C-alpha cells in the first residue's frame, strides 16, 4: 500500500490510489496531463501572435486582460497549473525510477525504436528538465509580474489595463533571452515528437486505422507549434535590430550608412 492508497482510503477510493500508483496509472497521469498541455499550447500561440501586430501592443494587452478576467478561462488555467505540477513531479519521479531499474549499465548499448525517435524517447527526462526550467522562468518573468502588478498601465479607449506588452518587448530585445526561448522551443519539439503519439499509446489508443494519422499529427504539431512560438521573439528582436527593413531606399544615397541608421 502506498501513501496515496492510504490517503484515499477514508473517502472510499483506495482502489483509485492503487491505480494511480501502478506503473500504468502513473503513465496515464503523464499522458492526460501531457495531452492537456498540448491542447493549451495552440491557444497560447494564437494570443502571442498579437505581439507581431504593429499596434503598439493594444490587441495583445486586451487579450491578456480578457484571459485574466474570464471565469471559465480562470478555471481552465488552474487545471493547467495543476497539470504542469503533476506532470513535472510524476515525470521526474518516473525518470529516476526507470533509471534505477537497470541496475548495472551495459558496456555496449544500442537503442533501436520502431515508429518513434529513440533519441527523443530516451531523453524525455532531460528534455522535460529544460522545459521545467523554462516554464519557471516564464512564469516568474511574465505571469508573476502580471499578478503582482509590476507592469506599466496603458489606457485604451478610456479603459486602463495592465500593459504586459512592454515587458515582453523588453525581454525579446535581449539576445540571451531569445536564445533561451528558442532552445526551449527546440526542446519542446523533441519532447512532443515522441510524447504526442506516446500519450495515445499509453491510453491504449492504438488502432491500425487511426495510429498512422495520430503519428502524422504529432510530427506536424511538434514542428509547427514550437516553430510558431520561436518565430515571435526572433521577429521582435529582428525588428528592434532593423533586420526586416531592407527596402529603405538608401541605395545610391550619398551618405548610405547614415540613411540606413535613420531608416532603422
Amino acid at each position, binding site marked *: 500500500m502506498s501513501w496515496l492508497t492510504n490517503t484515499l482510503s477514508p473517502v472510499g477510493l483506495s482502489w483509485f490510489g492503487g491505480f494511480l500508483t*501502478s506503473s500504468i496509472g502513473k503513465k496515464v497521469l503523464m499522458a492526460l496531463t501531457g495531452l492537456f498541455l498540448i491542447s493549451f499550447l495552440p491557444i497560447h500561440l494564437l494570443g502571442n501572435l498579437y505581439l507581431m501586430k504593429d499596434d503598439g501592443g493594444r490587441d495583445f494587452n486586451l487579450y491578456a486582460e480578457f484571459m485574466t478576467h474570464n471565469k471559465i478561462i480562470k478555471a481552465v488555467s488552474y487545471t493547467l497549473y495543476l497539470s504542469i505540477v503533476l506532470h513535472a513531479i510524476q515525470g521526474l519521479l*518516473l525518470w529516476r525510477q526507470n533509471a534505477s531499474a*537497470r541496475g548495472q549499465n*551495459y558496456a555496449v548499448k544500442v537503442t533501436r525504436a520502431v515508429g518513434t525517435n529513440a533519441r527523443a524517447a*530516451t531523453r524525455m527526462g532531460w528534455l522535460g528538465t529544460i522545459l521545467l526550467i523554462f516554464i519557471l522562468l516564464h512564469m516568474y518573468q511574465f505571469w508573476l509580474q502580471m499578478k503582482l502588478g509590476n507592469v506599466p498601465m496603458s489606457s485604451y479607449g478610456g479603459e486602463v489595463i495592465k500593459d504586459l506588452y512592454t515587458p515582453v518587448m523588453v525581454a525579446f530585445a535581449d539576445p540571451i533571452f531569445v536564445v533561451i526561448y528558442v532552445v526551449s522551443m527546440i526542446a519542446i519539439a523533441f519532447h512532443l515528437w515522441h510524447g504526442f503519439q506516446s500519450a495515445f499509446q499509453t491510453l491504449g489508443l*492504438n488502432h491500425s486505422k487511426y495510429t498512422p494519422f495520430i503519428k502524422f499529427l504529432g510530427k506536424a504539431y511538434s514542428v509547427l507549434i514550437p516553430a510558431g512560438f520561436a518565430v515571435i521573439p526572433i521577429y521582435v528582436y529582428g525588428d528592434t535590430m532593423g533586420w526586416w527593413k531592407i527596402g529603405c531606399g538608401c541605395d545610391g544615397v550619398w551618405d548610405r550608412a547614415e540613411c540606413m541608421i535613420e531608416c532603422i
Partner: protein
Amino acid sequence: MEIYFINLKLFNFVNSSTINFSTFFAMENMHLKLKIWRQGGKFAPKGEFVTYELDNVSEHMSFLEMLDVLNEKLISQREEPVAFEHDCREGICGTCSMVINGHPHGPNAGTTTCQLHMRFFKDGDTVTIEPFRAKSFPVIKDLVVDREAFDRIIQAGGFISASTGQAQDANAIPVSKELASASFDAAACIGCGACVAACPNASAMLFVSAKVSHLALLPQGKVEAKRRALAMVKQMDQEGFGNCSNITACEAECPKGISVENIARLNREYISAAFAFEEKEDKGGGAG
C-alpha cells in the same frame, strides 16, 4: 572439406534464388576477439570483462556453438568455462539470453542467440558479450541471469482456469480469423526477457502484454481477462521492473517480433479493469 559437404552446398545453390558465392567459399577460420562478462567463481563477485582470442571459427556455427568451442578450449587449458544458458537451440525455449554488441540476442532482427550464425560476423571482429541487465534479473554467473520474476508474473495470472476433461469440439467456440491471428502473434512470445534487456527502463511491459493479449483475445481467456490484467501488472510492479515510456526498443529487439500494439491492449485492459472490474473475494462454501 568432405564431398558430402560440397554436395550440400550445391544443393543449396540449386534451391536458392539468390546466388551467394560465399556459400561455395565458406569462411572456416575466422579469428574473433571475444570480450565476455565473467562474474562469480574465480572472477570478481561484481563481475568483470575478460577478453579471449578464438581461432578457427566457422561461419556455419551458431553463436552458441562458437561459445561451445571457446569453452572446450578453456576446459582443455584447465580454465573455468563461460556459463551461459541454452536448451532447445532452435529458437523456441527462450533461455539463450545474452547481449551481443549491445543487442539482446545479437544485432539481427527476429533471431534468438541460438539461431544467430557466425556468418554475420567478420574475421577479426571484436564481439562484446554481456548478460541481460536488469535489477529484476540478477546475474547468477557470467551470462546466466535469474528470470524467475517472469515465472512469478505468470503464476499471478498468466493462465486460464479450465476444468480438465474432454476437449470441447473446436467448432463449438467460434473465433474469427483476425482474433485468432492476433492472439497467435502474441502467443509467439517465448518469455526470453530480451524486451526487459533492451528497454532503457528495464520494463517488462512487452512480455506481460503478450501474455495478457494472447489469452484475452480468445473466448477461453476472456472470462478472466480483467482479473488477469490487474494481477499480472501488480506482480510486475512488485518485481521492480521499470515503467513503459513507449520507447519501443522491446519490439525492435524481440526475437519473436511481438508488437507494442499488445502494450496498448494491456493498457486498455488494465484501465478498464481498474475502473470497472469488481473484484470479489472467494468466500468458500457453496452448494455440493
